[in-house]
């Protein structure tokens, strides 16, 4: 039972990190070392950011760089660190009526529109302003389709639900959807869906997770020091190892890949360029004016 004697850190977080169980693992390890109770509030990235802006969370764990940049620029966030990455995936029925398997995401979505308009395929959208939904909108924009236009078409269905529920709706309709790899694998391995991974590679599908502390000058009662402690833990060797190992036992592969060493040691040039182009703001993971003196995070 939680008591008030320990410091409390409220982290509003994306459902995709929470539903896989990774955050439970992180909580167990973090609370062993630090006298802080981690309280995760699991919502979509959009709502997670709203909670933080209102001062109801001390920190956010999210995956929508464009929203994160805005969060920083409006003065709500400090000490952003990229903690992990993986790839989104376009999943669909095994019959694959639009024949998108192995195509690039641009080609795949173009074909889905075509086949969808013929009434032979459906697309399920999260429709909930989450990080995954933000990515989906970016993907449609990249092939010059406006999401507000697609919303009016009857093959395009908005679920307004979390990732798990959306996958189940997609299964029911034998439709296509965009999913994060973690939630997909969990649902697939537990026999809750039969949907197949059809497209999962390429820069447009890159998925980058970041941690950002809430600015204490805007909300003086937030636990800023606790947030910095958790950020340091997440980018530490121990934290990165937990991220890397999670899922290997259950699914035979990592659900997320640690990002810190990759970005520091510059081993995979192409991947680093992708992450920089997608998830860096003016060439920084966190521009110096948002370091709040914690330069040790950015060596």
């Amino acid at each position, binding site marked *: *039972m*939680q008591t008030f004697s320990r410091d409390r850190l*409220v982290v509003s977080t994306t*459902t995709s990190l929470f*539903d896989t*169980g990774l955050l*439970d693992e992180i*909580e167990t390890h973090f609370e062993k070392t630090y006298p802080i*109770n981690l*309280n*995760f*509030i*699991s919502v979509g990235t959009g709502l997670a950011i709203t909670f933080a802006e*209102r*001062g*109801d969370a001390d920190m956010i764990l999210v995956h929508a760089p464009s929203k994160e940049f805005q969060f920083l620029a409006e003065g709500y966030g400090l000490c952003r660190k990229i903690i992990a990455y993986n790839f989104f995936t376009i999943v669909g*029925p*095994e019959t694959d009526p639009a024949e998108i398997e192995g195509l690039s995401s641009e080609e795949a979505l173009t074909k889905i529109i075509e086949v969808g308009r013929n009434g032979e395929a459906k697309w399920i959208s999260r429709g909930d302003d989450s990080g995954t939904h933000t990515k989906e909108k970016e993907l449609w924009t990249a092939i010059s389709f406006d999401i507000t236009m697609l919303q009016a078409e009857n093959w395009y269905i908005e679920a307004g639900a*979390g990732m*798990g*529920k959306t996958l189940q709706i997609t*299964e029911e309709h034998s439709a296509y959807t965009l999913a994060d790899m973690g939630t997909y694998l*969990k*649902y697939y391995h*537990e*026999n*809750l*869906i*039969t949907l197949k991974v059809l497209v999962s590679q390429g820069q447009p599908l890159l998925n980058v997770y970041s941690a950002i502390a809430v600015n204490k000058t805007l*909300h003086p*009662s937030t636990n800023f020091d606790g947030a910095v402690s958790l950020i340091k833990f997440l980018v530490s060797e121990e934290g990165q190892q937990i991220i890397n190992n999670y899922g290997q036992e259950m699914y035979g592969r990592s659900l997320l890949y640690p990002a810190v060493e990759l970005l520091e040691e510059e081993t995979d040039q192409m991947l680093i360029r992708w992450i920089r182009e997608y998830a860096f703001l003016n060439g920084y993971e966190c521009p110096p004016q948002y370091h709040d003196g914690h330069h040790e995070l950015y060596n």
Partner: protein
Amino acid sequence: MRPIGENMFGEILEGLRKAIELIISVDPTVVQITLRSIYISGTATLLSVLWSLPFGITIGLRRFPGKNFVKSIFNALIGVPTVALGLVVYLILSKQGLLGSLHLLYSPLAIMFGQALLITPIMVSFIASAVEAVDPQIIDLAKTLGASELEASVAVLNESKDGVLLAIISGFNRAIAELGIALMLGGSIVGWTRVLTTTIALETGRGNLTIAIALSIILLLIVSAVSTLTNLIRRRR
């Protein structure tokens, strides 16, 4: 394709079997969540009694202009959607809200407060009806015998105690079975604000259907046990 649909009944039965195992083996997590639910919603009910009882008795006992209007408002509020009330209370308890400085958000107290408000209409309405059903001659008689206003109220309460108990039980049932407030004000934090309904929603979202089924069975058992109690009281009247 793997035959999900064909195995549906098998899956439900398997889920049920595992769920019953979880309950019989007295799984500590399941026990904790169940006790926490009863504790939080029970406290919310008692909290609500504090104001619902005097309010209900007053409305039931007194004649005043607009009495029917007040009663119809409470009747209408019985069906208030829990997410709507959850949102209102969230805005009040949020750091920028009226009571933000109390730091109540995402704590058991926040859920208690929200659920206490939620069940106020149902308690006030039921209590007022129970009090109204008492023969008005009892009040007159009490007053004739020299009873004060308060003493007369106590006499009425004594006559309507079954109805009041019914109101309290209905309030508790509504509180423990609701999801919106517990989720929005509690946040379903493990070991602290995670109650039966939020765990069912959460574990279903995570694809862990077994534990969700187990907790649903427990919730059903609690609610039906309490309802049975209500029926017994009704029959006694």
